[in-house]
């Protein structure tokens, strides 16, 4: 059986891991922005599924993946703007609205799919690959990590961008202040509501983009509930990474690898139920928490709506 493990196969496994990781990465980075700014964005699953739908529709009717990503990002932003209106502007309970949005858009997209695609199941053409010169020729590694759609590289670049934003820009300071002590940010002359609005909308854009990638590149088709839980993985990643984008990338990759590991073991004929392998990353993280578990400094104002001058 070992002869099955050709370079080609190993490459494909890692390629699959990467492909599976990208939506988690985007969702995680997105959630991270909201949480930094003090908004617990439980609605991210809803933003992803709607992004997946609008992203697919856009790509399918325009024939352009990039247009699909655009519509996907917009779709996510639409859901996010509901969250902004209800949770950031008028300060409704973020958990209630978050769950409401997730349920609602799961259902809505399933409905839309039913009336639009459930007889034709349209599928997209293969996503065009951008091979990175030289790197893409390395055996295994090359096809695994350097023959992807351009968006994948951009998503990874985004990690660096976010590190820069958090560490080196006023925006970074504003976001952190909005999460740790909004009143102080306000009296320093920065509008807290606006800052959080920006944060939540960015989350929507990234989550929507993640959903669009999942549908357009990951699956090439939209089916109901296609995101099944990716958004919640994003929340877990963001909370574990606590403001460090690199950790989100790391976590996303680990989850992706575990998925491919499943396939690898099966192909090798090793008889472990998929469920067991799915548990590995969570077990690892819990173990880490138990061993190193230190106080997790989540933003002090996380989940608390800000009202100027209230006491």
């Amino acid at each position, binding site marked *: 059986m070992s002869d099955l493990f050709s370079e080609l196969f190993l490459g494909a496994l890692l390629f699959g891991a990467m492909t599976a990781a990208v939506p988690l990465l985007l969702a995680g980075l997105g959630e991270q922005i909201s949480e930094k700014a003090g908004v617990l964005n439980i609605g991210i699953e809803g933003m992803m599924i709607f992004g997946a739908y609008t992203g697919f529709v856009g790509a399918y009717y325009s024939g352009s993946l990039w247009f699909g990503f655009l519509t996907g990002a917009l779709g996510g932003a639409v859901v996010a703007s509901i969250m902004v209106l209800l949770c950031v502007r008028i300060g409704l309970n973020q958990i209630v609205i978050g769950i409401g949005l997730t349920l609602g858009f799961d259902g809505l997209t399933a409905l839309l799919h039913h009336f639009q695609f459930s007889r034709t199941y349209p599928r997209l053409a293969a996503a065009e690959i951008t091979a990175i010169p030289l790197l893409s020729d390395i055996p295994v590694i090359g096809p695994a990590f350097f023959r992807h759609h351009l968006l994948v590289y951009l998503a990874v670049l985004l990690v660096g961008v976010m590190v820069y934003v958090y560490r080196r820009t006023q925006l970074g300071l504003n976001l952190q202040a909005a999460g740790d*002590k909004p009143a102080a940010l306000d009296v320093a002359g920065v509008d807290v509501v606006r800052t959080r609005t920006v944060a939540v909308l960015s989350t929507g854009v990234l989550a929507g983009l993640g959903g669009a990638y999942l549908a357009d590149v990951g699956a090439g088709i939209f089916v109901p509930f296609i995101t099944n839980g990716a958004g919640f993985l994003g929340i877990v990643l963001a909370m574990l990474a606590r403001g460090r984008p690199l950790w989100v990338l790391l976590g996303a990759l680990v989850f992706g690898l575990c998925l491919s590991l499943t396939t690898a073991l099966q192909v090798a004929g090793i008889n472990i139920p998929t469920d067991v392998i799915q548990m590995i990353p969570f077990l690892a993280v819990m173990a880490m928490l138990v061993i190193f578990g230190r106080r997790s400094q989540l933003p002090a104002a996380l989940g608390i709506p800000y009202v100027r001058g209230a006491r």
Partner: protein
Amino acid sequence: MEAGGHPVIALERVTKRFPGVVANDSVSLAIRAGEVHVLLGENGAGKSTLIGMLSGLQQPDEGRILIDGQPVAITSPRHALSLGVGTVFQHAMLVPTLTVAENLLLGAAWWRRPRKDSLRAEVEELASSLGIRIDLDATAAELSLGEQQQVEILRALLRNSRVLILDESTSMLTPSGIDELGALMRRLVKRGLAIVFITHKLREATAFGDRISILKLGRKVGEIAPERFSALSEDDLTAEIVETMFGNRRSDPDATTRVGTQFPADAQPLLAVRDLCLAPSATSPGLSKISFELRAGEVLGIAGIDGNGQKQLAEVLAGQIAADSGAILLEGRPVDAMSVGARRDAGLRYLTDDRLGEGTVGAFPVSINFFLKQVGRSPFWKAGIEQGGEIDRRAAELVRDYDVRTPSIRTPIGRLSGGNIQKVLLARELSTGAKAVIFNKPTYGLDLANTLVTRQRILDAAASGKGTLVISTDLEELLQLCDRIAVMSGGRLVGTVANGPHAASEVGSLMIGLAA
């Protein structure tokens, strides 16, 4: 001299209402360049609200605000800053997780790279000219409240404000700190700044002010212009202020100092503390070999600049944190092993300085807050079941005895003023079975009347044979209350002096590190 410049800001018949209260009732006020304008008034008089409107946190319901003679609607803090109004708020307004530098940089355009270097230069220059020292790279959370206030003042000046507003900024400072701030204010007004200074301490008002306005229940009930201000002697001034604030003549509580009663050295100590040690942390110097004895009926003061381990000492004594080593004996019996609850039962009580933070549950009614430390005890709970009637009866009693001003015993305590919250805490700690009581900053943020009440409670407690430990950053307070005053610095007790004529200077020199 500098008084009598043109009004930078003028409020015209400004009114602000909140659910159930008129916080400001057509208040008119002129704030002039080159003038320290002192705002006095009881808790809840409306001072902070007035400030809130000047700094854009709130908008007036009626009346208008003029800047340089032009009516302006100050819509947001950003707007206020752009108009040159810088405010240091009553409650610290720094982001604890950011460094001092980052805090100072907050507010610049969002796409900018934080310009740390140019900031460093500016701060160097400004700070030295003001004679204050600031570590830009320290995290805000590491700073003592005093240092935080300095940072906030600096921030206001960095934004070259024309008007600087200080809301109860001295409540956290030591005498020397207060004097420094006073001197600083004088220097600033010389530069042509306009300053609004809110305090509950008449001494500060008379010492640093040019003009005084007095608020009462939201109304402006009096103003003393610079001319009269300089004309009157300090005592007359004080008298007049007290007159306007309280109607009947009542003397400034800080005026008198008490001569400590000498306790026979062989008297059995009520509370004995031996070599208490606690490891230092990022935010505190910890405790090193703290030892002292407190006798029944004695008032022992602990002076010192805020953040020198006083809070840690109090919490170790109360059992909220465990000491690394050392012993605490109450009536000769060690209590080190006891829990907070057990120590309380034994008669060791702790009245915290953080009223809303840990002293009370703001959302809970006054009645429950009285018994926060007796949850589950009869007669208020029987077999774990809440005895509503019993609780309400006793609560009503305490509200009466301690003269707590609250709409009802069901009012969420967070709604009450600090002064009234303090009365609830006093009632809770002093009511039944107290032997040794630790008071931490007992009158911080309280107005004159509440301050007097609180201090009288402490003296009564001592008179009734309780041992009382008073931690305060307010030296006058200690001089007025204590038999002996110990000075704390860097987590150590650097010396103890018997109260008396020379106590003030001795304590002062101990604070700044000279041996007594």
